[in-house]
C-alpha cells in the first residue's frame, strides 16, 4: 500500500475530490495546512507597516491506495490540482506497512 499526500491550493479541493471519486477512491482525509514553496507569500499593509505573510493557506489531502493504483492516482490528483500558476503545490507517496478499518478490524488492502 501507499500513502499519497497532496498539498494543494484550497480552491482545487472539489475538483480533486470529484476526480478521485470518478477513479473509484472511497475515502480521503483533508486537513487545512499552511506553507510555502517557490510561491513564497504575499505582503500585507497595516497602517503603513508591511508584513510579509510567507505561510499561505493550503489543503493537505491524504489517500491510501493499493500499490498498483498509486502512480495512476497521483496523476489523477496532479491533473485535477493543476492551474499552471505558481503555488499549485506538491504530491508525493510513501509506503504504508499496514492499515486497519476500525469498525471491522479488517487489515491491509481490505481496509481501504
Amino acid at each position: 500500500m501507499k500513502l499519497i499526500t497532496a498539498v494543494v491550493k484550497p480552491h482545487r479541493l472539489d475538483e480533486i475530490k470529484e476526480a478521485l471519486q470518478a477513479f473509484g477512491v472511497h475515502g480521503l482525509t483533508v486537513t487545512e495546512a499552511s506553507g510555502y514553496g517557490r510561491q513564497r507569500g504575499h505582503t500585507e499593509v497595516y497602517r503603513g507597516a508591511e508584513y510579509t505573510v510567507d505561510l499561505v493557506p493550503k489543503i493537505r489531502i491524504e489517500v491510501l491506495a493499493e500499490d498498483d493504483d498509486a502512480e495512476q492516482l497521483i496523476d489523477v490528483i496532479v491533473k485535477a490540482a493543476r492551474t499552471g500558476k505558481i503555488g499549485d503545490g506538491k504530491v508525493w507517496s510513501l509506503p504504508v506497512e499496514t492499515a486497519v478499518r476500525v469498525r471491522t478490524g479488517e487489515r491491509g488492502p481490505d481496509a481501504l
Partner: protein
Amino acid sequence: MAAAITLAAEAPKLSSANTGFMLICSALVLIMTPGLAFFYGGMVRVKSTLNMLMMSFISIGIVTILWVLYGFSLAFGTDSGSLIGWNSDWVGLSNIGLTQLWDGYTIPIFVFMVFQMMFAIITPALISGALADRVKFSAWALFVALWATVVYFPVAHWVWGAGGWAFELGVIDFAGGTAVHINAGAAALGVILVIGKRVGFKKDPMRPHSLPLVMLGAGLLWFGWFGFNAGSWLGNDDGVGALMFVNTQVATAAAMLAWLAYEKIRHGAFTTLGAASGAVAGLVAITPSGGAVSPLGAIAVGAIAGVLCAMAVGLKYKFGYDDSLDVVGVHLVGGVAGSLLIGFFATGKGQSEATGVFYGDHSFDQLWKQCAGVFAILAYSLVVSAVLAFLLDKTIGMRVSEDDEIAGIDQAEHAETAYDFSGAGGGAARTTALPTAVADASKKVDA
C-alpha cells in the same frame, strides 16, 4: 406673555427638548467606549482580544463611581486658583435638586453631570490602545482611578470649568480636543516611555486579528461621536449644536478619504484599517474645532488631520516607542492638529466671535491661545502620567511576566480566551468535563 419672555431671557428655564436631547447624547457618548473597545480589540492579536476589550470596559465601572463621588465636583465645582474645582453639595451628588439647572443653561445639573461623566469614562479608555498585550489588569485599573483623579478631572476643569485657566484665556475646545484627545494621547506616550515595548516589537508580525471588529468599533465611535460633539453645546437653541453635528460628519468623511488617498499613493492599497483610522482621525480633529469652523473649513480640518495622522503612525517604528495601536499617532496628533487649526479656520460666526488667521482681521491671536492650551495640557499629561506609571511600576508592577505576555494576556489575566477555534466545537479539546458549579447542580438534581 412679554413679561414671561423677558423673564426667560434673564433666567433660563428648564427645556424638555434640550434635556431629552442631552440625555440621548449622554447615551451616545457612552456607546463610544464599547465602540472603542471593539476598535482596539480587533487590532490586537487573538491572544489579547479580551484584555483589550476589558481595559475599556473597566473604565466605565471605575470612572462612573469616581465621577459620582468626587470627580464632578473637582472638574466643575467652584474654582480655586484657576486649577481645580470643588463643591461639597456635589460630592456623592448628595445635594443637587432634580430640577436645579446647570448655571446659565436650560438643562438640569444632573443631566450635565451625566453627560460629562461619559467623557471622563472614555478618556482613560483611549490610553489603553497604546498599552496592548502587556499591562497587568490590576495595575491598569488602579492607573485609571489615579489618572482620572490627578489628570482628567483637573484638566477638564481647566478647559471647561468656569474659572479654569484655559477657559478664561479663551482657548477654544468645543468637545474635548485638548481635554480628551491630547490629554489621552500625551498620557499614552508618557506611560509607554516608562513601561517599554511589547515582546517582539518590530520583530514579530503583529497583525490585527479582526478588521471587521475594527470597522464595527469605528462605526460605533462615529455614531456616538454625534452625541459627544453636538451635545457639547448643551442644547440647540441657537443652531451651533447642529453646525457641530454637520461638521462632525463632513470632517470625518474628508479625513477618511484623505487617509485612504495617502495610503494608496504611499503603500499601494486602500486598506480597511486605513478607512477606520482616517475616520477616527477626522472625528478627533473636528472635536475641538467643529463649533468654530464652516463646513468647508471642516473639510480642510479633516483632510489635513487625515494625512498628518496617516504619516504619524509610522513614527513609532522610527523612534522605537511601542504605541501599540497608535493612540499617539491618531489621538495626540489629531487632537493637536484640530486644536491648532482653529487658529487658522475659525470663522467667528460659530460658537464665538474669535477668528483664525484666514478670517476676520487675520490675527494670530487665537492661534497663540490654542498653542498655549495645547502645549500646557500635553506637557502636564505627559509628565504626570509618566510619573504615575513609574510609581505603579515600582510598587505593584505595571507589566505581566514575559511568559504570560508571550502565551497571551487573556489567559493570564482573565482566565478566558476570546474565540474557540476547534473544529469540534470545543468538545474534543476540553480537558475538564464541566464547570464545577454546573456539576454540583446536576448532582443535586440526581439526589
